[in-house]
C-alpha cells in the first residue's frame, strides 16, 4: 500500500526534482575558471625550476659545486664555472633542460646551499623544444605566471 501511494503521488520524482533544485545554490558550483582563478597547489609541489639569488645582495647563491648536474641524467643540468684569482669557483652559465626533466627533485635535494629550487608554478609549456632549455637568466628571474584578464 505504501509503495502504491508513493507511486501515486510521484514521490520519487519529486525527491529527484528537489535534489536537482538544491544544486542551483552558488556554493554547489564545482567549476574552476582556470586562467582567472588558479587552483591552490600543494606546498611541496615541484614545478618550474628557479635559481635563487641572495635576497639582499642579489648575488647568486649557487656555488657552482655541480652535484645537481650529477644527480640526474647526463646534461640535463649543465653548470659552467671559472676559477677566480683566489682559486674559488664562480658560476658563469647554468642551463636546465625542462624537456627531459621529470620533476623528481633530486637536483634540488643535492644542492647544499638551497640555490636550485623547484617552485610551485606549473605553467611550463613552451612553443618549441628549444624554449624548454632554460638558461641562467631565465632561471634566476624565475617563473612568471601569466595573469589573464578579459
Amino acid at each position, binding site marked *: 500500500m505504501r509503495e502504491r501511494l508513493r507511486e501515486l503521488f510521484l514521490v520519487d520524482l519529486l525527491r*529527484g526534482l528537489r535534489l536537482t533544485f538544491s*544544486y542551483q545554490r552558488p556554493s554547489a558550483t564545482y567549476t574552476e575558471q582556470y586562467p582567472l582563478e588558479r587552483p591552490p597547489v600543494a606546498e611541496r609541489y615541484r614545478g618550474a625550476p628557479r635559481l635563487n639569488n641572495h635576497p639582499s645582495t642579489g648575488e647568486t647563491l649557487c656555488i657552482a659545486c655541480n652535484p645537481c648536474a650529477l644527480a640526474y641524467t647526463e646534461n640535463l643540468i649543465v653548470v659552467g664555472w671559472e676559477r677566480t684569482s683566489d682559486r674559488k669557483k664562480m658560476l658563469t652559465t647554468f642551463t636546465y633542460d625542462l624537456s627531459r626533466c621529470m620533476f623528481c627533485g633530486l637536483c634540488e635535494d643535492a644542492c647544499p646551499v638551497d640555490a636550485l629550487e623547484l617552485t610551485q608554478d606549473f605553467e611550463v609549456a613552451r612553443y618549441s623544444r628549444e624554449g624548454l632549455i632554460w638558461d641562467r637568466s631565465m632561471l634566476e628571474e624565475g617563473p612568471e605566471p601569466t595573469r589573464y584578464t578579459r
Partner: protein
Amino acid sequence: MAATQEVARFLSDHSLVEATLKIVVVFAVLSGLVAYLVYLERKVLAFMQARLGPMRVGPWGILQPIADGLKLLLKEDLVPAGADRTVFLLAPVISVVAAFSVFAAIPYGPGGWTITNPNVGILLILGLSSLGIYGIILGGWSSNSHYPLIGSFRSAAQLVSYEVAAGLAIVSVLLIANSLSLVAIVQRQQQMGAWNVFLNPVAFVIYLIAGVAETNRNPFDLPEAESELTGGFHTEYSGFRFALYFMAEYTNMVLIASLAVVLFLGGWLRPFESVRWLSLLKYAPAAALVGAAVFVLWLGLKSRVRAERIFFAALAMGCVLLAAVVAMPAVLEAIQGVFWFTVKVMAILYAFIWYRATFPRYRFDQLMTVGWQRLIPLALSSLIVTAIMLVWTGQRLAPLLVANVLGGALTVLILSARQDSGRFRTIEGATR
C-alpha cells in the same frame, strides 16, 4: 499607381496596420525569447549539474545566443548526397512557420494584447501546431539517412500518441469554459474566481506531461536521443536550416507553456485577484525589476573584471529606471496582464528545463505504455468526471475539484492494479 492606392488603402485600414505591427512585435519578442531560452536552459542545466555553463562570451556568457546564431548563419548549408533536395530544403521552414504562426491566436493580456481572437482559437492553435510534425517527418525522410528516418518516425508516433491525451485534457477545460475562444476561456476563469488548475488538476498534470512529450523534451526526447540516434531528425541538417529546427523546437516549448497558462493558469489574470489585502501584488512588475537590479548589482560586485563591473552597474541602473517608469499607475495598469502572463510562462518553461535536468529518458515501449495505457485512460476518466459534475452540480469549484481528484486517484489505482495482474501487454520484464 495601383500599388500606391493599394498601400494607401492598407494604411487607412487601421486594424490591418495594427495587426501587422503586433505581428512584428510578437515575432521579434518571440525570436529574442527563444534565443535567450536556449541560454537560460544552458545556464539552469549547468547550475543543476554543479557547473557554470557559458561564461566566456560577454559577462556571464550573456552574448552566447548571439554568437551561436552568428556561427550557425555563417556555416555551410549542406545537402547530403541522395537527399530529396526540395523537400530537404523546405522541411525546416514548414516546422518554423507552423511554430510561429500559432502565436497569432494567443491572448497575452486583456483587451488589445492579442493579435486576433478567433472564436475557434484553440482548434486553430492545435491544428496549426500539429502541422509542425510534417516538417519533422519530411526532414527525416528526405535526409536519405537512417538516424533521421528513425528519429522522425519516433517523433510521429510520439506526437500522435500524446496529442490524444493532451486533446482530451483540453476538452475538459473547454467543457468548463463553454467556449473555444482563448480569451473567453480566460474570462471564464475570471468569472469563476478560480483558475482551471483548481477545477481540474488531473487534466493539468496530463496536459503538462503530454506537452513535454509533444515538444520532444526530456524525459520524452526519443526522437532526438543523442545516445541512440546521434541527433534524431535533424542529424543531416547544418547551418541555418538546423537553426530553424532549433528555433521551431523552442518556439513550440513556449507555445505549450503559453497554452498551459491560458487554459489552466488563468492566462493574464493576477493571482489572488479577489483577495483585498493581496492587491499589493499589483506592484509586482516594479518589484521584480528592483529585484533584478539588486541581483545584477550583486553579480557586478562579485566580478573582478572592471568592464563587467561597469556593465552590471549600468544594467542595474537601467532596471531601476525601468522600475520607476513601470511604477507609474497608468503603465502599471497597462502591463499588468502581460506581466503575469510572462511570469507564468517563464515558470512553466523553467519547470521544463528542471525536468530535463532531473528525469532519465523513457524507453520507447515505456513511452507508448505511458501514453496509451496511462495518460489516455486518465484523461478520459477526467473528462467524464468533469462532464458529469458540470451537469450535476454546475460550475462550482469544490465539487469539481474533489470529484476530479478522487476520480483521478481511482483511475490510477485501477490502472496499476491491472498492470499488476499482468493484463497489460508489455515487453518481458518491462512492466512500468
